[in-house]
């Protein structure tokens, strides 16, 4: 399916553009070194597991986005970039699973791909919307409250995960 084939590349390109524009607006043009860095990284890791390579790239992207936020770059661009990076990561992993389907599975894969891309776009859009809406709210809480809330959130999340693992 053409949409699925191009989604990872288009979203990766757009996410990289977001990052470059975000850092460029703050006059941090050193970010352009990321392009040869990605090529070099891709070259040296081409024989390792694709999931591992992509996950490292996603983590690197998020670290750069966090750094961008810390140095007061545009949070909109960082957030949109992260969402696109997630779309790229997910759709690449998905396309490797359904590629080379033949015969009866080719048709089935197409419906699966349509469903997948639709769900992915809906979910990421909701997430992005929530994030962007959150940017317009400003809550000033003392550090202790924030720490307690964060710890509660992490503990809740951890318990939820443990329940799911079981």
């Amino acid at each position: 399916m053409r949409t699925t084939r191009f989604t990872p590349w288009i979203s990766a390109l757009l996410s990289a553009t977001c990052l470059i524009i975000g850092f460029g607006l703050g006059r941090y043009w050193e970010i352009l070194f990321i392009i040869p860095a990605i090529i070099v990284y891709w070259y040296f890791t081409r024989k390792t597991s694709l999931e591992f390579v992509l996950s490292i790239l996603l983590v690197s992207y998020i670290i750069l986005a966090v750094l961008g936020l810390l140095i007061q770059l545009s949070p909109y661009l960082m957030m949109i970039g992260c969402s696109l990076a997630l779309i790229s990561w997910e759709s690449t992993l998905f396309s490797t699973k359904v590629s080379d389907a033949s015969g009866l599975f080719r048709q089935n894969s197409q419906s699966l791909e349509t469903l997948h891309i639709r769900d992915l776009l809906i979910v990421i859009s909701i997430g992005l919307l929530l994030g962007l809406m959150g940017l317009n709210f400003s809550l000033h809480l003392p550090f202790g409250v924030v720490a307690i809330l964060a710890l509660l959130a992490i503990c809740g999340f951890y318990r939820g995960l443990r329940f799911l693992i079981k």
Partner: protein
Amino acid sequence: MMNNKSLFIAALVVGLFLAALFSRDGEIILLSMPFFTYMMFGILKFPKKVDLIVARTLKRASTAPLEPIEMSVLVENADISQAILSLQDPLFPSMRLLEGRLKQPFLLAPGDQIVLKYAFSASRGIYSWKSVRIVASDPFSLFELPLDIPASAKILIHPELMRLGHIPIRPRFTRHIPGSIPARLPGSGTNFFGVREYRAGDPLRRIHWRMTARYPHKLFTKEFEQDEVADIGLILDTRDLNGDHPGGESLFNHAVRATASLAEVFLREGNRVGLLIYGERMVPLFPGSGSRQLHRIYNCLAQASTRRSIPLEYLDYFSSRLFPSKSLIFMISSLGNRDLPAYQRLCAGGYQVILISPDPVEYAAKKMPAAQINALAFRASKIERYIRLSQLVSMGVQVVDWPMDQSLNSIIHESFSNIYLSHRRYAGR
């Protein structure tokens, strides 16, 4: 159940939370929102239970090694909701995938069914499947529910056969059932046997006119040799005689192939064939004839593997119970150091023993790098083997020394066509 993917996303979300906490920057928490919703969607869409009906079909019940085998796995969704499934049907280690995929994600609407097909080849053995692993998951494969659904199938990969023609064996004792082995008795065969005086009832076309002309007032009849079936015992030696010998397993595979080919030839000609797989694990198969017996033999041979070496003395307990007395025994063995007394006892018990011995010395020499071969050791091994085979010949065992680079068919025919030549080769020097 969580997998690596969901753990990774969870770690990212937690990492962003912690980063936000330490940097006291609320925007970093917001950065995690797309990841958080992505994960929550997975949790919400994760199927708790899926009802599936699965059937597995193999196109053949038995086949030869490396022949393509087609496997079909039918999956039907008996649930009321749509399911995102992934079929995972791994192959056994000695199998090779030829066509199709072993891991295939697919979407199955309620009541729908799909057939996964793939082709593989396998080496000798019996392979059975009991279930099919199907993994139900959310649309992003973050959380997975593995299901092992019963779907059994079994296939026998029999040993690869060697091309063997008719083997001109001359057993001392035959069963009085028409067959293809000359029985040293006058009867209704095709080989000329002798001439005797005419008896009332002899067909006129059998009258020996030359002899009748020589002796006036008397009639003579030609006699033909009766062709009968024989009782043949096959003993496959599965003892690990060669230890860490290079190519030991392959040598054993040749022996298994030879046993299967011999069984096929003898059963095709109507003989009764029994089998004993001799080793740490004994597998006896009582004599029988026909295609069913051949299938039983293939079944036993498919599972044969080399085991720890044990003395050949235990053969005495089996031979008398398994093989009728005076029957012809084919022993397929590379011959151990202390095997001679057992052969002696077999011969003394009235069995006619033929040893088909794959030559491990030559075989190892061909498999090993030239630099590792010690010429003296190689020569000593050859002499040792030669002496052992000579001793067997002097006991009355017919020896077929099988260099592995030659076809068994030619070696057997060479040995059987001139039995005295092969006898002289070992005993006469």
